[in-house]
Every structure is written in C-alpha cells, then in structure tokens.
C-alpha cells in the first residue's frame, strides 16, 4: 500500500482538529458567561430533548427532507464534471448548465407552489 498519497489528508485532518480545538478553547477561556432559563433549556428542533425517539414528527419535516434529498443528490452529478471540466470543454459545460437550468425550473416551481413555506 502506498500510504504517502494520503499524507495531505492527514495534514488536513490535523489542521482541522487543531483549529477547532483552538477556537473552542479560546471561547471557553475568554467567553462571557451568563446563565438564564431559556439558555440552559434543552433544545432539539422544538422537541423535548429527553424523550423516547419514537415520537411522531410533523409531516412537514418530510417535505423539507424530500426537497433536500433532491437538491442535495443532484449535486452528485456535478462532481464528475467538476473534477474534469477542463478536459471536457464547452459542450459538457453547456450540458451541465442545461441540467442546472432544469433544476432551476424545479426550484421556481416549488417556491411558487409554496413548498418552502412552513405554514
């Protein structure tokens, strides 16, 4: 196994851990702390934090989930293009943008239909 190829990732992970630790530590040390009821109350998307997991969610969460899944995963189609767009040239560019245009139409449709409104 040629593990040297994965060295940048190791560096990246190390840097990430370092920076995160630094920021948390700074906030902990230098932070201004006041405690009041609302602040210390457990918060979980409007649900009671200490409860069984088998509760009913509002159906609207699913709607958001649907939209998220769609727009999230369609991006997966962009990755192969993104890593090779220089070699592929303008025709691939046109293809990808027509794909994005179709997604845009979908987005306009869902916006106008009010799917993004909570109520």
């Amino acid at each position, binding site marked *: 196994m040629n593990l040297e190829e994965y060295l940048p990732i190791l560096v990246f992970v190390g840097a990430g851990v370092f920076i995160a630790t630094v920021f948390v530590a700074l906030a902990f040390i230098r932070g201004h702390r006041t405690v009041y009821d609302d602040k210390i109350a457990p918060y979980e998307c409007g649900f009671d934090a200490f409860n069984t997991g088998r509760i009913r969610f509002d*159906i609207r969460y*699913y*709607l958001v*989930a*649907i*939209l998220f*899944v*769609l727009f*999230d*995963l*369609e991006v*997966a*189609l962009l*990755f*192969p293009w993104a890593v090779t767009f220089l070699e592929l040239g303008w025709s691939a560019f046109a293809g990808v943008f027509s794909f994005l245009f179709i997604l845009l139409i979908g987005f306009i449709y869902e916006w106008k239909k009010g799917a993004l409104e909570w109520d």
Partner: protein
Amino acid sequence: MIDPFHINILSILVFVIAAMGILISMNNLIKVFLCIELMFLAVSINFIAYAYAAHNIDGHVFTVFLLTVAAAESAVGLGILVFYFRRRSVISVADATVLKG
C-alpha cells in the same frame, strides 16, 4: 484475491436482506422506502465491482446516475407517503386493502 463473484455474493446478501425487509416491514412505509434504497445500493456495489474488475468506466457512471435517480425516486416516494398519510393518518400499508378482489 477478491473477485467480482465475492462482491456479487455480498450484493445478493444485501439485496435479500432488503427484500426481506420490504416483506416484513409493511407496517411502516418509511422502512419500506429504506429497504428499496438499500436494494439500489446493493446493485450499486455490483456495478462498481464489475466496473473495477473490467477496468470499464460505464459501471461507475451508471452508479452515479443510479444514486441521483434513486434520490428522485425516493422523493416521489416520500411525496406519495405524505399524501397517503394525510388520507389515512397511518403509514402502514399492511392493512391497505380497500382495493382488492
């Protein structure tokens, strides 16, 4: 050495698990959809294994498309689920037998 045949067996195992999952979890549509997604993934494993073994890019491309199309399909599925829930107030299809005979 691992060859596509072994991956094939893995994918079949996953596929069968998913199929059994569909059959036994009819009382929860979400689980059914999960199992269907699992089946997609089992097939994806197959494609990637064959593509890797044959050094052929088509399998990888298919997998990417498969994932996105599966996403679209599950979106439609969830839409139908929401609709179904609004009409029935349950997400079980085990007793959905208004249409029969």
